[in-house]
């Protein structure tokens, strides 16, 4: 019957009122508008670049960069190519973002828990911190850190020190750094085994449980083995597979260990304290969203306070926390582009230098935006996978 109706439709409704035709027409119109805007801009771009004799292309990437980068995770000198310089910037961005995300999460959880504390004073202080961070621009915070706080730090000779290990002065932060010693490879192998043993023990335990043999012990054993293996490896490898090199004051500055510039340190601290305020609110919201009945029921079952948190509150809060936490991680990564204000050579700063030197802003910006987009998409993909794991299956 419907077929007959549709045929009758086709006979009576003129083409310009047929929904199917209109849908296609509307889409064609939109695509046409977008294409003509792009064509218009491309034509203007062609004339503008022709006038200035600039052209468009990515061939400059193979040319010698000719500028120095103060800090780099891979060997780099000014005789390397632009593409190497770009990768240095990318690695710097990834580095500061990764460290920032870890630290901001730790501080953020602390802030969130403090906001829920029954201690009125602690609660209010945490709230004040959150409001202060959220209502002032990050760029201003970075500028204050870099040009007020760090400039007031003592000179190299009078560095603030924690024992003989860590030093903070006007030039940056100096920390002990690991360096491989004898038997390093062997020890690394043990560490690899330690990482593999936890999922392995879980898989075996699950198999046994499916077969009807409870095996909680096996899981605990797996974790214990993972903790013990690196220590065993350390002894087997002869006692010193990794030695920690301490920063030593030389004639002009510290050498050895890990040296972090003031720009990096200011950016890292700024990003961490700014994002932690937002993460704190996310954590607080997530924990408060767990219904009170859950807490009471768990207590009524005789679980200890720790068990209540670990087994009831936290798993349920996590599924509310993860999506907004993802967007905070993305924000932190994107905000790391403010590095330019404190002189840290991240992706954006190096991109800007490249654009100035080559006179090719468009290819550089396409590369930059593309890279940021890939980082963002990869982060949300990872977090979405994690999110799927923590979601409680509703029945």
């Amino acid at each position, binding site marked *: 019957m419907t077929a007959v109706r549709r045929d009758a439709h086709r006979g009576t409704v003129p083409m310009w009122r047929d929904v199917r035709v209109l849908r296609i027409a509307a889409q064609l119109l939109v*695509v046409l508008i977008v294409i003509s805007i792009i064509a218009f801009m491309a034509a*203007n771009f062609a004339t503008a670049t022709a006038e200035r004799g600039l052209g468009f292309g990515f061939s400059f990437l193979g040319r010698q960069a000719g500028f120095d980068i103060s800090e780099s995770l891979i060997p780099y000198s000014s005789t390397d190519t632009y593409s190497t310089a770009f990768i240095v910037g990318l690695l710097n961005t990834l580095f500061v973002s990764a460290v920032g995300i870890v630290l901001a999460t730790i501080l953020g959880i602390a802030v969130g828990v403090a906001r829920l504390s*029954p*201690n009125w004073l602690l609660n209010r202080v945490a709230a004040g911190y959150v409001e202060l961070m959220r209502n002032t621009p990050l*760029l201003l915070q970075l500028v204050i850190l870099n040009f007020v706080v760090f400039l007031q730090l003592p000179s190299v000779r009078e560095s603030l020190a924690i024992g003989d290990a860590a030093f903070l002065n006007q030039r940056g932060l100096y920390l002990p750094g690991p360096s491989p010693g004898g038997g390093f490879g062997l020890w690394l192998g043990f560490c690899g085994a330690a990482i593999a043993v936890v999922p392995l023990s879980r898989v075996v335990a699950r198999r046994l449980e499916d077969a009807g043999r409870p095996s909680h012990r096996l899981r605990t054993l797996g974790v214990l083995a993972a903790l013990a293996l690196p220590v065993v490896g350390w002894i087997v490898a002869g006692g010193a597979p990794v030695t920690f090199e301490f920063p030593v004051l030389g004639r002009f500055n510290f050498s050895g260990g890990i040296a972090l510039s003031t720009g990096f340190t200011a950016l890292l601290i700024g990003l961490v304290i700014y994002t932690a305020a937002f993460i704190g609110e996310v954590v607080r919201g997530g924990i408060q969203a767990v219904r009170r009945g859950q807490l009471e029921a768990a207590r009524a079952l005789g679980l200890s306070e720790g068990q209540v948190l670990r087994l009831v509150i936290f798993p349920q809060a996590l599924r509310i926390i993860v999506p907004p936490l993802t967007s905070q991680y993305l924000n932190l990564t994107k905000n790391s582009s403010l590095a*330019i204000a404190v002189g840290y050579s991240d992706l954006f700063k190096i991109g800007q230098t490249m654009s100035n030197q080559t006179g090719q802003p468009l290819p550089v910006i396409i590369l*930059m935006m593309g890279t940021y987009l890939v980082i963002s998409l990869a982060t949300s993909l990872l977090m979405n996978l994690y999110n799927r794991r923590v979601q409680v299956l509703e029945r």
Partner: protein
Amino acid sequence: MTAETLPPPASTIGPLAWLRANLFSGPVNGLVSVFVAAALVWLALQIGGWATSEARWSVVTENLRIFLIGRYPGDLAWRIWLALAIPSVLAGMSAGVHGRASRMLAVTMSAVQALIAVLIATSPIGPLGVLAYAANAACVWIAFLLGLRGWIPRRALTIAWLVSLPISFLLLAGFEGTPLVSVSTNDWGGLLLTILLATVGIVLSFPLGVLLAVGRRSQLPMVRILSTSYIELIRGVPLVTILFMADLILPLFLPGEWRLDRVARAMGGITLFSAAYVAENVRGGLQAIPSGQVEAAQALGLTGVQTNIHIVLPQALRAVIPANVGLFISLLKDTTLVTIIGLLELLNIGRAVLAQPESLGARMEVYTFIAVVFFVLCYAMSQASYRIERALGVGTR
């Protein structure tokens, strides 16, 4: 019968009981309280001591005009005052006519301008400036009383709001060869530029954002794909890259005759950026509309466009007002990034002031002042948005 005398129960009211319950409920809690209190007192003493004795606030008061309006000619400052008077009057009237939600806007407008009047009173700008901003703050309340009378038709008020922004803008910019001398946007700066960039950004991006949000939920696949890609592309990259593009590449994309100045380019970049975020807010509002509304509209015979305009959007847009206030706050903070392309907004004006030899070593004073200005504006607005949320009953109706 041996009656044992029990001690009286612990008091549950009064300051001592409050202290016990909230600060000293256990040994750990007590220790934390003492530690936090000591740290707070130390911090307050340090900051208080610095602010009252060491700090040279004269750097701020002497340069207040620059902080507020940048290099905008001082003798034309009355135009800024007039440009602010228009939205002040309109905000007051809206508060009278519409009530609750717009009342927060009116309170914020009058409080901020009263604050500016107080600031000007401490500076060498002169009593005329104080009077002007105090008058603006008062205007809000006079207009509010007028609005309460019910003489003002709602539609006229809406139209007045729509035309007020271009009028204020033209008043600031002026025209070449008329008594209203033109002022180059290169001279706009300070707080004026900060607020202008954020306001223009949110207002211009709103229609674009609504279109994108509707497009993303469209049943036409091409429209959906295009809208989604735009939104995700913009949300995936930092604002600085977009400002960088607007500054360097936008001029290359436009015909050579269309000379856009720096401020216009930055506004363009901010608008394109915030449109994607407005779109996501509006999409949230659209998703909150129960599907029964759309079905009912269809059953009444409304077309798709009519359903959107008369049924879905009015409900969705009301629900997203708080989210958009939040967006405006972050936009206000993000305008500091135009520093990177060299515009003299509040933060960059601070750097310009610090570059003067007489303000040497006054970094902390200048940055503290800027931080306080941002804090007051953003905090006031976030509180306002919280109240609006409750007044609109989002999620409770």
